[in-house]
């Protein structure tokens, strides 16, 4: 009897002791404590007691259960983090973990559902909860405007989501791009005309009218028209659009130094004057297909021709 009593009384004390002991162990070994380590330390407890203790610690959010190559390890959780999600239940914690993993790319709601295996309604409720607690935020993706990705509140969204320097608040800044376009072209044009004046040798003329993308980038940064810091790749995309405009040509040369290849750009003149078809009204006429002699729209009665001939 005397033995039974202390054993009964010892249990709760031992249980609490076990928990605190485990926490101490975790603190001692920050990398993580395996189950075997706890067993070695306190051989007197049964596996069930250990499991109960660990479960209690997990539910109170004081330790983390992680899987490593050797097996399961228990790590002490950061107290600040613990305080944040105290009071939330397991599901919310799970969802929060999933979102945290994604870092600055954010995660789509369907992916959260897949990873957590929760119902859609449940996930929605949890997300609303977390948002109201200001733990996560939703960011609209630039690629698909209906898609919302979730990420932690204090994390900066990645470029692929917001679209980088050309987008401000999900809006494509076309005037900004236009201005940059014109400035880059002006720079290259000036370079070309300077080359024509100073050099007599045609090859030297062409070579000195070339500007590398780094040169253009320096010029634009010095102009200071951009509030956002632009990178060389951004400038290169602008120069690509100038190539599509037919105003600029590119050639790639192998360059010295650490850069493997440099892209050189120069302004070019167009190949021909505007073509003959476009110098008369028929070229731009919107009802060209409906026009025939004797019809209501005909060359003899054409108003565009009349105006053109009076000029």
């Amino acid at each position, binding site marked *: 009897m005397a033995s039974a009593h202390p054993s009964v009384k010892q249990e709760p004390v031992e249980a609490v002791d076990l928990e605190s002991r485990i926490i101490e162990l975790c603190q001692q070994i920050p990398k993580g404590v395996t189950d075997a380590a706890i067993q070695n330390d306190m051989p007197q407890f049964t596996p069930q007691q250990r499991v109960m203790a660990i479960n209690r610690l997990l539910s109170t959010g004081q330790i983390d259960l992680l899987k490593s190559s050797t097996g399961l390890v228990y790590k002490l959780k950061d107290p600040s983090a613990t305080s944040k999600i105290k009071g939330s239940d397991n599901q919310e914690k799970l969802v929060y973990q999933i979102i945290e993993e994604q870092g600055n790319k954010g995660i789509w709601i369907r992916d959260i559902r897949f990873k957590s295996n929760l119902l859609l309604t449940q996930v929605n409720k949890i997300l609303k909860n977390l948002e109201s607690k200001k733990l996560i935020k939703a960011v609209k993706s630039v690629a698909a405007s209906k898609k919302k990705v979730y990420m932690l509140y204090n994390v900066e969204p990645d470029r692929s989501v917001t679209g980088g320097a050309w987008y401000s608040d999900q809006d494509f800044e076309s005037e900004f791009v236009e201005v940059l*376009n014109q400035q880059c072209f002006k720079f290259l044009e000036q370079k070309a005309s300077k080359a024509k004046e100073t050099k007599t040798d*045609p090859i030297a003329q062409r070579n000195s009218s070339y500007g590398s993308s780094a040169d253009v980038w320096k010029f634009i940064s010095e102009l200071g028209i951009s509030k956002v810091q632009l990178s060389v790749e951004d400038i290169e995309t602008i120069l*690509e659009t100038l190539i*599509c*405009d*037919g105003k600029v040509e590119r050639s790639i040369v192998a360059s010295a130094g650490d850069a493997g290849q440099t892209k050189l750009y120069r302004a070019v003149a167009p190949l*021909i004057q505007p073509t003959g*078809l476009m110098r008369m009204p028929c070229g731009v006429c919107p009802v060209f297909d409906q026009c025939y002699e004797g019809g209501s729209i005909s*060359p003899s009665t054409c108003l565009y021709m009349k105006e053109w*001939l009076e000029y």
Partner: protein
Amino acid sequence: MIECICSKCYLIFSSSSLVELKTRLPTNTKVLQGTMSTWQVPLCSLLLREYYGEVVSKVGTYLAKKGLTPLRVIAQETSLKLDQVKKSLCTLIQQNIVAFEMNKRGFTEYCADVTRILHRLRFPRYMYSVKTLYGDAAELIIEELLHNGQMTMGRVVDKVTERLNEAMLDNQSVSPSLVKDKFAKLVYTHFIQRCPALVSSTEEATPSMPILAINEEDRFLLPTVEEAEDSSSRKRKRVIEDSSPTQAKRQKISREEKHDSDVHCSIYWCVNFDRFHQYLRDQGLISAVMNKIDKKASEVLRTMLRLSEVRTDFKAAVSAHMSTNEIFQALPKELSLKRQTLEQYLKLLTDDSTDFVSKTGDSGGGMYSINLHRAVKNLCKAHIESVVQERFGSKCFRIFRLLLLKGHLEQKQIEEFAMIPAKEAKEMVYRMFEEHFITLTEVPKTPDHAPSRTYYLFSVNINQVSRMLLEKCFKAMTNLMNRRDHESRENRRLLEKQQRVEAIAASLEQSGADPAQKEEVEQMITPPERAQVAKVKHMTNKMEQSEIQLDETMFIIQTYLQSTHVHDVKLK
């Protein structure tokens, strides 16, 4: 819509989405250019009417539409008298528009060549080219030949000398030998050629139809000196200035005079249109290089083209190779280009993105050749891009060029590369798609072609766009000509009055009347009428100028399509 529906023509659908119209001719199958063209035939009928009158126009249009037809059928279908049809056919044959062949069943059939009718649009350009190359006399020679179709050398020289002498101030006169020299030069540079002559063999000749044939070597063969001086020998004896040969030859001439006169009279000459087209194409390339690089580079290219002229076939894809040494020796002295500068310009031309010239070897200081096919293609692309820019705007132009450079792209990629907001980009792409400048290819991901799981790729098909633009050009040209007709018809009364007054004034001046009478006549036309006449003249000039400019576009597109056709067929 395919125009030719006679029993002799049949369609070939080839894999390059080119529908060819072939005609069964006894000698060889001739592919009629301008397949699937709705507006070519109306344009032809307008041109024929302007140049030769209503009757000829009817006959010519009928032949252009129907292909090979015998004489009776033409008369029947056009409801004209047989006599009229015969005369019209004579005119058309004289102008080298209509050719005749022997049908299997033994009667002659006539067919018209549509491209030759369309050459009439380019006559001003031909004359101007010759004027810049060889001077006024040559221009008049070409003009006479173009007006009359086929002529003997003697008659051409006579007429041109007459015209030049009329226009000469003071008492200068131009000798026929000068004109003859120019003629010889034009033959030597292949601008003029011999017409197919009568073959007088006994086996092949049939009683009803003459056979015309020409040997390839004889095409540009000037008759020998004796023969040439023959027909105008009578006139030449009267002319004091004579750069003719020595005494001995003169005696020989008088002896052979009678004998050779027959031979010479039967040599007819006509204009070699292919050569002119080659020249115009070269001009296009030279002016493009001048715009892109600078004047000296265009002179280098001009020299290269001149060197390759005689060695390269008109339809070749790449010109003959020439070495730097050759080019350096052939450069005009005024350029005063040093050897080193020449090499630099050649390097510039080779490296340029328009890809006109390429280096093919290192012997002789560097061997270069001109990529004719690629050059024409790039020129044609430039014209198409110009159309897009003027019609749709700069943003569409950017998207169009993007598709040309990159090939097939999805809608999203277009927005990304062109840096245009999504909504605008969509609108522009669909506008261009509506007007058939861009084509759509569907690439399904799943066998059931569900729209959400298919890739929609946009691309540009140059051949298709070229043909579409050519059609537009034909229609626009028809519109211009119709409008011009309309304007002159509206003001016909006024213009006739003006002409009468001018004639009266001129005759008064010749007969030496006093100024008072002349003034009275001049006052018959009131100032507002005069202003109206000036306005009509201005409008007509503008429209004619526009026709020539429009023809430039047409020429480049036609040259490109011709060149592609030849080289696509070769590749197969």
